[in-house]
């Protein structure tokens, strides 16, 4: 048996198995649960990197469940129109890499962070399930499977958000909001699945894409899918759950939640580009996504400026940064039907938007982890109560500066690289959009200067005399993210050429996507 053919399923199966082993092992030894989780996720990370190398050199991979090829006919004559499969192209593995890195570092960071709470084994079990759900959403080629993995991720993340709800009221409140939002979105996705199945008798993304007619019913399905996936991604008119959920979840979970909302964002792009592509009115849908993006950028940042809770402030910035991704990809979609404009600036805009997804996961994760480190040592998230912490927590201060500079788009950090791509390409589409994006970036910088000033600078405060640097595994997780940020900032060309450009091309070229799955059919 050749195991290397089974890498896609192993990436999901290993955390899934570990998720159910962890509570059993927790009965014997509580400490072993965290180590088992970290081990399972590190195996997943290594396998994802191996798969990424394979996909970027050989081409998209299809993994069919229970058969060797998508259209296998059994000896008894039983033949399925198309089987259930994972279909992983450059875009899917790009998101998979983010998920793998973020969940692995989240598990390492959790080791000391979560030690003082009860129910550590359940925490790790849910963390693994959340990772499984995210990987599944990114890898699957089947629209009903997508719904199932979406629900796995939602249920696990709700339980994790309200993890501290046993002791405090607020996390339960945030969890309730997120649960209602995510069950509505999942049910609407299921309704759209029903519409597709009723028309075309198939549930496979690629197979639907090859026969889609853009009828009235398809328009209804699109109208259901775009708002609910944008809602799960936290775009502005539907962003009310984001600040609550992000601020009340434990810090490592917040970092993973950011990646989970980006998995929904990925699904939005997958639906628009791979499922419909130029059969829809790209200019209108593109502008709808651009307007979602603009609103998210501007309202997110203005709401962030007035916040006093450090994690709530960062959560509003997460909404604002999601706007950049929607803006970049929306511009790419708006000019999709126009090959000249697409070559001139559309592809660059999409590269900026997609590159920003990875950059955002890294620096926003780092910022949430530093906020978690402050909370871990001081016990408060209120900026007015903090001060002078740079005297006690030197590493955390440095990591915070790196993260803040990256989110504000200062060179030589990674936020600058992707934002520059967005500015210069969007300027050629519509100068006003680019100017708004720059203003938002300046406001972001102002807001983080305020955080830096009130949390880290100032004289030593007597109530923080006992505060010292966080444990080494938390420092390790933050240091890895900082290294990735600086590396991406120094060599953006390398990443854009090898990782981001193939991802963008795999979104744009619909025929390649359907061709990989349907093969010789």
């Amino acid at each position, binding site marked *: 048996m050749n195991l290397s053919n089974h890498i896609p399923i192993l990436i999901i199966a290993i955390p899934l198995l570990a998720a159910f082993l962890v509570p059993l092992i927790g009965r014997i030894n509580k400490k072993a649960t965290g180590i088992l989780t970290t081990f399972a996720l590190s195996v997943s990370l290594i396998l994802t990197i191996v798969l990424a190398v394979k996909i970027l050199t050989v081409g998209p991979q299809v993994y069919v469940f229970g058969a060797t090829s998508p259209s296998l006919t059994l000896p008894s004559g039983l033949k399925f129109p198309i089987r259930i499969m994972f279909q992983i192209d450059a875009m899917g593995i790009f998101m998979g890499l983010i998920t793998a890195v973020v969940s692995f570092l989240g598990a390492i960071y959790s080791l000391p962070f979560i030690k003082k709470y009860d129910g550590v084994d359940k925490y790790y079990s849910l963390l693994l399930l959340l990772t499984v759900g995210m990987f599944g959403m990114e890898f699957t080629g089947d629209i*009903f499977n997508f719904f199932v993995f979406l*629900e796995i991720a939602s*249920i696990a993340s709700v339980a994790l958000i309200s993890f501290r709800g046993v002791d405090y*009221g607020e996390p*339960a409140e*945030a969890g309730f909001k997120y649960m209602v939002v995510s*069950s509505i979105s999942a*049910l609407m996705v299921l*309704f759209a699945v029903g519409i597709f199945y009723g028309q075309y008798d198939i549930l496979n993304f690629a197979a639907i894409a090859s026969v889609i007619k853009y009828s009235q019913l398809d328009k209804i399905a699109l109208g259901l899918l775009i708002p609910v996936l944008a809602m799960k991604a936290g775009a502005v008119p539907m962003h009310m759950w984001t600040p609550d959920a992000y601020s009340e979840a434990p810090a490592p979970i917040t970092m993973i939640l950011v990646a989970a909302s980006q998995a929904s964002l990925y699904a939005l792009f997958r639906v628009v580009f791979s499922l419909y592509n130029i059969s829809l009115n790209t200019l209108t849908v593109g502008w709808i996504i651009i307007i979602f993006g603009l609103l998210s950028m501007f309202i997110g940042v203005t709401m962030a400026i007035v916040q006093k809770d450090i994690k709530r402030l960062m959560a509003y910035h997460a909404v604002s940064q999601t706007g950049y991704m929607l803006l970049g990809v929306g511009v790419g979609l708006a000019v999709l039907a126009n090959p000249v404009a697409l070559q001139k600036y559309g592809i660059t805009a999409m590269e900026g938007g997609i590159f920003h997804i990875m950059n955002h996961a890294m620096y926003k994760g780092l910022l949430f982890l530093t906020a978690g480190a402050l909370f871990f040592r001081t016990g408060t998230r209120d900026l007015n109560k903090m001060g002078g912490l740079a005297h006690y927590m030197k590493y955390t201060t440095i990591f915070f500066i790196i993260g803040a500079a990256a989110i504000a788009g200062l060179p030589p950090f990674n936020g600058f690289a992707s934002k520059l791509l967005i500015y210069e390409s969007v300027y050629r589409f519509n100068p006003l959009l680019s100017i708004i994006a720059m203003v938002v970036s300046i406001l972001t910088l102002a807001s983080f200067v305020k955080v830096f000033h009130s949390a880290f600078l100032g004289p030593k405060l007597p109530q923080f005399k006992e505060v010292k640097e966080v444990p080494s595994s938390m420092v390790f997780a933050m240091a890895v993210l900082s290294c990735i940020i600086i590396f991406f900032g120094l060599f953006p060309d390398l990443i854009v050429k090898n990782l981001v450009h193939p991802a963008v091309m795999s979104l744009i070229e619909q025929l390649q996507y359907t061709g990989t799955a349907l093969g010789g059919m």
Partner: protein
Amino acid sequence: MIGNLPYVVVVIFIGLGIYTLMFKKNLIKIAIGVCLIENGVNLFLITLGYRKGAIAPIYTQAPSGQVMVLPTPQALTLTSIVIGIATTALILSVAMMIYKHYGTLDTDEVRRLRG
């Protein structure tokens, strides 16, 4: 016309569910609203697979030549029902935790997170 009746029921279910979510202030009633939408979607899936005069899709015991209803939507619905149970249980348990801390289920009073 009469064949379209299930779709009308689907619309009523989902409409009632959305109405409950938007205008009811009690957390338990919100959970009921989510359940109503879920039932509507499940009914929609089942209706899609219905064929007039068809029998249950059990391959081995069917008389040959008989029309069967589509099995796939039924499998989808079964999965969706199982997921729905987990969702409902989680919503209700979170509502229970909220009641423990706030002493009320009224959404106007469960508002410590704002701004």
